[in-house]
């Protein structure tokens, strides 16, 4: 009680819908079906119009916000005595509703652009496309450029990537609220960590490369037909179309959310999000760490089990090792569920940072 620490014992594995029971599979099927429908058909358009919304994407934004609010209520009922959780989830939901739903909805009414302030490149991969930048008013183009390339990594260096991944980002926000009932399902195995490192950095490299190619195409594409065809054409196999389909729709939506009840809520964030990868590198070099009290851990496994990013926190805690993992989104749950108060998230003073090789 008292603003930190888990109240009472959790009954997680006794609830079938949270423990890969029949109900869990059913929810997964429903979620996957919803995303397939959303991305690959226009069934939702009439419903959106009937509600007076400009497109199915706005309807999706509304559903998304409702799911996040519902999830936040669930989350705060389970862990809400923790002050860190209260503030963090409150901010995250507010950002989603204000910046990712209401503002884009009303801006066109005032003659402005529909612009999503809370999504930055490379998560919002289109934000730094030359064509996008060119179409924006200067201040928004500058926001996209400076926000994505300078501010986001700098903040991650200073406070950890949590400033984005679990305080601002909509994907992280949905995972942390609507997805919270399944957070223990993220695999903690060493093999899952190996997969994560390869996958997430591959997508990161692809995101950077493809953006660079699009920029190149913007400059010289007029004169190089093949380049234009391969990079930016409307062909289904062009880099632009393929990345949008594979990363934007399949990995972020269908797989990312569809499998919440089977593999935990951070499948996308952990294995595929290029933004998480970039910010993770900044975090590795920066000040954020999880501090471990020496020789207090009882190896119970609560921290690892409830880590939504699949970090085996216990492995560090039982070795008395304060640590910074690139994947950590700073949700604060390990410190919350630890029954012996062994863990503390903090932005360490510069001289006290843990220095670990980047590869770890």
């Amino acid at each position, binding site marked *: 009680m008292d603003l930190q620490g888990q109240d009472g014992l959790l009954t997680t594995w006794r609830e079938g819908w949270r423990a890969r029971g029949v109900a869990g599979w059913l929810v997964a099927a429903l979620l996957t079906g919803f995303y397939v429908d959303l991305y690959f058909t226009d069934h939702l358009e009439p419903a959106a119009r009937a509600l007076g919304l400009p497109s199915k994407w706005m309807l999706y934004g509304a559903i998304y916000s409702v799911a996040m609010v519902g999830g936040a209520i669930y989350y705060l009922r389970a862990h809400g005595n923790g002050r860190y959780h209260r503030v963090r989830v409150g901010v995250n939901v507010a950002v989603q509703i204000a910046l990712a739903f209401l503002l884009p909805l009303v801006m066109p009414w005032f003659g402005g652009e529909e612009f999503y302030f809370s999504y930055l490149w490379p998560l919002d991969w289109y934000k730094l496309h030359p064509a996008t930048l060119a179409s924006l008013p200067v201040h928004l183009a500058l926001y996209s450029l400076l926000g994505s390339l300078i501010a986001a990594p700098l903040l991650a260096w200073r406070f950890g990537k949590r400033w984005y991944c679990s305080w601002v980002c909509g994907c992280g926000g949905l995972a942390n609220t609507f997805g919270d009932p399944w957070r223990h399902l993220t695999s903690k195995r060493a093999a899952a960590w190996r997969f994560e490192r390869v996958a997430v950095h591959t997508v990161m490299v692809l995101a950077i490369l493809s953006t660079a190619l699009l920029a190149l195409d913007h400059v010289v594409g007029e004169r190089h037909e093949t380049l234009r065809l391969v990079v930016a054409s409307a062909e289904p196999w062009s880099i632009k179309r393929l990345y949008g389909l594979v990363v934007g729709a399949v990995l972020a939506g269908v797989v990312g959310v569809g499998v919440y009840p089977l593999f935990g809520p951070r499948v996308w964030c952990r294995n595929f999000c290029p933004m998480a990868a970039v910010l993770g590198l900044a975090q590795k070099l920066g000040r954020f760490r999880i501090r471990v009290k020496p020789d207090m851990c009882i190896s*119970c*496994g*609560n921290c690892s089990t409830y880590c939504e990013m699949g970090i085996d926190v216990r492995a560090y805690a*039982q070795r008395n090792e304060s640590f910074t993992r690139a994947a950590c989104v700073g949700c*604060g749950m390990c410190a919350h569920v630890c029954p012996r*108060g062994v863990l503390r998230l*903090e932005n360490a003073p510069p001289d006290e940072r843990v220095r670990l090789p980047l590869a770890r």
Partner: protein
Amino acid sequence: MRVVIVGNGVAGIEAALALRAREPGATITIVSEESDHFFSRTALMWIHSGQLRHEETEPYERDLYARERFERVRARAVGLDPEAHTVRLAGGLAPLPYDRLLVACGSRPRPTPWPGAELRGVGHFVTHQDLAWLEREVWGGPSRGGSPPRPDAHLAATDERSPYRPRPDGHAARGGPPRHPVVIGGGLVGIEAVEVLLAAKLTPRFLVREEWFWPLALDRAEADWITGRLRAHGVLVHLGEHVEALEGEGTLARVRTDRASYDADVCVVAIGVVPNTDWIGDALARDAGGGVLVGPGLETSAEDVFAAGDCASVRWFHGARMPEPLWYTARAQGRVAGRRLAGDRADYARGVFYNSSKLADVEHTTVGLVSMNVEGERNWRFEERGAVRSTLRVVLAGERVVGMNALGRRWDHAVWIRWIEERRSLAYVLSHLAEASFDTELVPPLVVPRDAREAPPEGPAPSVIDAPLPAPEA
């Protein structure tokens, strides 16, 4: 080199790992009756409630034994022959020869001292088999966390003295979960059993012999907070009540105390643990409580035999020799033992005592000499009831801080240990509290107003327990 380790607990595994790091070629055999895999005994309560599954309480992935080339024997050790350098096993298995042996066989529940211990419905909460029993009593079968692999594999090679034998339950006869669960014993395991029953939406009766809960660690005011919280959850807490008998016809029906008789269908007896060493007999020198006496290097009375963990009687900071039934001490001893098994020199040096726990959702940290009746002891107390509810007690001997006991907030014990070793004063400690704070971010810091910082006057120690320090053994 052939090394045998009796015990697959934290002491045994830490020793095996430390040994393997030094001796890649040694043959290491781990004898364990209770389980195939090393698991965290401290986590039994969460498996019961459904917060964790068995696998998640195992600190290493299950391929550990293959990766580190640890051989396993799932059987009960029933004797030790230091002359012949062999360990005898139950079930007619061939004796295991060793060049060096580590005894890390942990503790067993303190036996029930009242009539009725054998009744169906009576059990403990220490071993995997105890957990399985309480799961069946409450849920009618294993929790959703399933069962550990091969839960009964040791039954072919055990004997009737083993604490790892399955216990029959009364769930089927009752036709459901217990209606009148009782927990006896006001310590850590007792309160964990109470919490486990609460999580299953049962309202246990909690019988505590002492005048307040856990006097070994808490003073009356601190304990009142904890029992108050238990009562708020519906627990029927009885303090200062002595159990006299467990009664029933084959199955538990009542618990009789010096004050009354209560209906009871399940009873968890949690009155402490004792060293699990009766199988050793006279082969090793043991203390009066059964702990294997060890020297600074964890060596026993027999050549090439070491002991570590709950079963080892070590010398405490105050000179007495007794086991330290704690996780971190078992781990530290295991690491020393591993180096000893490899033939290196290493000593187990016990520093300032500390521990942390969680009592009915209230976090507890203790460091140094608390509830020890130190001569000239004075206790400075502070209670906070703002956004955070917490208590802080600093124990002084003369002007010097010798201990602290805190509820409700998180503290870095390492900083307190440093202060105690540096012989700091109360004034110093109170003006540097922020350094030792380990609260999560955004929790407002503890502020002790200036006028509350005075040390209490000298005088007789506000007696917390009457038992004096155990006398150091020769």
